[in-house]
């Protein structure tokens, strides 16, 4: 920001500076981050989510570095028997996996973390699968979050800024989307998605398709919130002032209204990310989500549940814990953001 008159000639000496009392300007960002930093759970969650994100992004690199294994291959012991439902234990160097290269079966030593969290019914490392399952979950969360944020903001702001016909038709459409029962419709789409031939295969079977499906069904709530924000903000004095100063619609929306409507958008998107991860897991649990052999936490809980009945509890417990912890962290972060982005709120936490 330039000071008034600061561009003409020499910069005037600030009286505070002359007295040696220079004041650091406190920006909105400083206020926000200091409030967020006071929310201890949100900070812990942020660290956790960043760690998870790093691990998940680096998963293929970790695989090729030999720290984790191939999530689709069963582990075998020295005699070539598949290690099914092995309880969690530290590596004893006796774990291998086989691969067929040039029609020759080659045996490799598995990574030291192979049995850290046990193995599943097909002898695959639960630890590896949880890390790769996080890829699916976080992809779904982020892609859905992006879709919901953009669709909700566009629809909501158009409806809120242009009352009358635009508002009416957009909101009727939003009501219609909100009126669709989410899980039953998502199940139908999840069931037929792999069979729609004109779609590229990464959408048909991978997490992207599921993310888009959830995103297109879930933006209605945010659109309503954004519309309400726009309706109240466009009547505010500062908007009137901007208009009086000759600002066009674009400038008013992007410089004056949207920045002020940002906080509910950010908070709502964070919560949607958590919800999307849960919905994807539920779809995968029912068998209508991301298709095997791609590991997902929901499918692992489903398989693990069947093993847990026989006493092999680890797959279900660890994948369930990964799912709950991640969503919990996202929700805590959302709570922290809500507190931090609301300037009127006084934090009474201890």
């Amino acid at each position, binding site marked *: 920001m330039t000071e008034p008159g600061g561009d003409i000639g020499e910069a005037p000496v600030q009286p505070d500076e002359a007295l040696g009392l220079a004041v650091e300007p406190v920006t909105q960002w400083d206020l926000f981050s200091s409030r967020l930093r006071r929310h201890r759970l949100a900070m812990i969650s942020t660290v956790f989510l960043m760690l998870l994100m790093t691990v998940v992004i680096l998963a293929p690199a970790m695989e090729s570095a030999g720290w984790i294994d191939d999530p689709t291959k069963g582990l075998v012991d020295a005699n070539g028997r598949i290690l099914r439902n092995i309880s969690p234990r530290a590596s004893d160097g006796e774990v291998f996996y086989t691969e067929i290269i040039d029609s020759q079966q080659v045996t490799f030593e598995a990574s030291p973390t192979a049995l850290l969290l046990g193995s599943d019914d097909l002898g695959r490392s639960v630890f590896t699968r949880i890390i790769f399952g996080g890829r699916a979950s976080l992809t779904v969360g982020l892609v859905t979050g992006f879709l919901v944020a953009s669709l909700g903001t566009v629809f909501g702001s158009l409806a809120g800024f242009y009352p009358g016909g635009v508002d009416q038709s957009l909101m009727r459409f939003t009501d219609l989307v909100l009126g669709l029962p989410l899980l039953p419709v998502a199940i*139908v789409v999840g069931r037929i998605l792999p069979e729609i031939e004109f779609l590229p295969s990464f959408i048909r079977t991978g997490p992207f398709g599921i993310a888009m499906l959830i995103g297109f069904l879930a933006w209605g709530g945010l659109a309503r919130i954004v519309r309400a924000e726009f309706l109240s903000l466009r009547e505010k004095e500062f908007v009137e002032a901007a208009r009086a100063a000759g600002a066009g619609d674009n400038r008013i929306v992007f410089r004056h209204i949207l920045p002020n409507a940002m906080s509910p958008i950010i908070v709502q998107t964070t919560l949607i990310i958590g919800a999307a991860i849960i919905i994807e*897991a539920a779809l995968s649990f029912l068998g209508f989500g991301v298709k095997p052999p791609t590991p997902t936490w929901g499918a692992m809980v489903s398989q693990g549940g069947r093993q847990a009945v026989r006493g092999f509890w680890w797959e279900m417990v660890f994948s369930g814990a990964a799912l709950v912890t991640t969503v919990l962290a996202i929700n805590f972060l959302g709570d922290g953001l809500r507190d931090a982005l609301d300037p009127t709120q006084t934090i009474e936490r201890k």
Partner: protein
Amino acid sequence: MLAYITRRLVYGMVTLLALSAIVFSLLQMTGGGPLDRLKLNPRMGPYIQQLTELWGLDQPAWKQYMTWLKNYTTIEELSLQNALPIIAIVGGAAATYGLVKYVRRQWKGLAVVGVWAVALFVAVSNTTIRFNWGTSFSGSGDVWDLVWSRAGATFRLGLTALAIALIIGVPLGIYQAVRQYSFFDQLGTIGAFIAFSTPIFIIGIALQILLALYLEKWTGVKLFYVTGMNDPGYSDMSAMGKLVDTLQHLILPAVSIALISLAGYARFQRASMLEVLHSDYLRTAKAKGLPRRKVIVKHALRNAMIPIVTLVSLDLAFMIGGAIITESIFGWPGIGRLYIKAITEIDYPLVMAIVMVIGIGLIIMNIVADILYGVLDPRVRYD
């Protein structure tokens, strides 16, 4: 009010049309037809052509949709079993007239809604009505019979879950608000956060494995059953035995659906109670020296419990999703499990029928909740 209800019904119709069109066209996109499964059976060979024509699968998709729509909304059979439906409707109308004309109390609106709930229930339960919803493609028989034979189980599960969530959640939220920032309040807040972050299927499987399976394994006490709605020997049991058996099957799935909603109701009730507790009229009540108990029960509670009606109606869609998941975990013979089976086999008529039943139920419940809200809170006006 009437205009408002009419408008809501019209919007509801449009939503239902859109829902049916979307689901129908999605089902059309599957690679193979619904007869793929039957084609695998060599003995079915000669009948495939016949079935294709019988079910109209050789028609273009839009024609199939129009046929479906026409059949779905056509009443096949409508007859009264006795005179009770007519008596109920006439009685309902008379009671409404009397209430509107002669009663000028605040509870008038609620009484009207209640009278009509009872009247419609009596009318529907004494009427035989059938719609032509078609025949299941996977050989499960007539869709109308199939759906309604399963609906009772889902209603039992859903209503129990709703009751659990309301009976525990609402008082919990009130208590948390009255003792704000106490240890119990903090505990409730953390608990709610954990519940919101836990998918229903994890709650369901955890309850099933821990309380139904391992509890018996470790202690030898059979407190809950793993699957099903009733024991095979149910019909030979005494009345008490029947009740106990029903509860042993019902509680775990109902709790797994209810838990997340319960946390939601408690949070919402806490916020709404806090808002009332900080309002001016409550300060006045305190200032004029009313005892604390009276302030909370008489002044705060009544007003703070109104908004939960809206939340419950919004929550129903979530509960239906929960029922689908829970029914497939606990082998509950309800609509949800039927839906999963129908989808897996791409059984058009069954999928469409269930989706529409869910859609219609949600829309009606939302309208009822809106009316109820206006009845309970005289400040609300419909325009």
